[in-house]
């Protein structure tokens, strides 16, 4: 004889129904009393020390009630009035006290000490640069880009120019420091030779280069006239246009020399970003006279832009 599973199962559950009305009523009462005595969240464990009675009622954990199934509902609520301080309080309060009394003051003092040192350093650095500039002035070498400049001076200048962003800070400090100085003009002239000003970076030289931002910051022109042959043009994963180009001839002078840079050689193959707006149906195999620019902080360090006359 087959039995109806669905019917019998439902009947079995129905025959064993719990009486929950007392619990439901108590829970509603607890919520309402919590609401009338303040805007506390029903059932929350937030403890308000100013209202201990209300809070103990509102903090009844409804899922814990099962443990007392045989007891009257209100009795259960009363039991919860014994408030226990959570264990984490004993750790958190001393930790907070230590933090406030020891770590923060010490940290503050150390920070102040550090700042003092830093300001002292900042004062010293411009002086060094000024000395350098002065020595250059004394030896009547104003055109520091020329080969006549002393090798020491060149090295120092290159370091300041290309090594890192701190260099620019130094340059800026030098401007400030030099203000009002009687050799102000000559120093600025020298420094300008070695420092990429914001005008250079954002100026006309770069306005046509529309390589997306992801290509990095253009830190300057390496050479403004290099004849290159396009070997292949493609896009990288980020949708930036790249080209492999062969150096045919270096026609212009080197303007900017990155720290790890060696001069281009004929036949050398570079991978470089190319402008997005440089439209030529088939660049492959064509030769252009290009401006080669330096891209800092990027895997690909070159960007080439065909000279306007050639486009």
């Amino acid at each position: 004889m087959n039995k109806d599973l669905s019917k019998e199962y439902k009947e079995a559950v129905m025959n064993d129904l719990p009486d929950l009305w007392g619990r439901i009523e108590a829970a509603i009462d607890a919520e309402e009393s919590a609401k009338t005595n303040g805007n506390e969240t029903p059932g929350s464990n937030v403890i308000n020390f100013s209202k201990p009675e209300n809070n103990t009622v509102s903090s009844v954990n409804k899922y814990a009630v099962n443990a007392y199934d045989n007891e009257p509902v209100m009795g259960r609520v009363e039991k919860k009035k014994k408030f226990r301080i959570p264990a984490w309080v004993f750790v958190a309060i001393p930790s907070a006290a230590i933090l406030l009394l020891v770590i923060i003051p010490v940290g503050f003092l150390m920070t102040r000490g550090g700042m003092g040192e830093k300001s002292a350093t900042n004062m010293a650095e411009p002086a060094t640069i000024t000395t350098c500039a002065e020595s250059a002035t004394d030896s009547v070498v104003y055109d520091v880009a020329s080969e006549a400049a002393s090798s020491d001076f060149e090295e120092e200048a290159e370091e300041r120019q290309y090594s890192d962003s701190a260099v620019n800070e130094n340059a800026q400090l030098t401007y400030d420091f030099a203000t009002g100085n009687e050799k102000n003009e000559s120093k600025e002239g020298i420094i300008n030779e070695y420092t990429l000003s914001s005008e250079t970076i954002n100026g006309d030289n770069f306005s046509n280069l529309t390589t997306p931002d992801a290509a990095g910051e253009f830190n300057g022109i390496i050479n403004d006239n290099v004849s290159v042959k396009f070997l292949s043009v493609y896009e990288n994963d980020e949708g930036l246009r790249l080209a492999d180009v062969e150096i045919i001839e270096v026609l212009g002078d080197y303007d900017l020399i990155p720290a790890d840079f060696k001069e281009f050689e004929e036949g050398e193959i570079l991978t470089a970003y190319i402008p997005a707006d440089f439209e030529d149906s088939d660049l492959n195999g064509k030769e252009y006279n290009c401006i080669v620019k330096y891209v800092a902080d990027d895997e690909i360090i070159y960007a080439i832009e065909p000279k306007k006359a050639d486009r």
Partner: protein
Amino acid sequence: LTQEKFSECINRIKNKDKSGLKDIYDEYLGYIYSIIYGVVGQRENAEDVTQDFFVKLYNMAETMELKDSHKTFLATIARNMAIDFVRKNSRSVAVDDFIEEGIEPVANDKVEETVIGDMTVTEALATLSEKERQVVSMKILSDMTFNEISEALGIPMGTITWRYQEAIKKLRRLGYE
């Protein structure tokens, strides 16, 4: 309860009269409890969620707007609350499963030997694994589809249907269709 009677109960609740809720409770406790029990699968937890359900109904009465059948509406809320509970307590459920799996299930050959006529539905369900019982309960008591069960438990639907079929096979041997 008719729709009118149910609306009248809701109106009483809106006036903070708990008797409206009591009438709904008396009428639908079994229906709601079995839906919740089907999902939760454990008596104590089912009681807790059922309690929450009626408290929630009391609190939401003020903003309640019934368009469809109130019975379907109540079933949907109950089922969702039970599913939420299972999801929130999945860790403890997993522990229960582990304990349950420590109990050796009744072997098939022993099932065959059992006197079929003597076995109650509770005993028959006890021969299933906890996971099989959960699917059967959700399907039969909570009236959920396999897809709903799959989503509620976060288990592929193929697994759910397979468990259900395995469970039904075992129950058939015990005389349940």
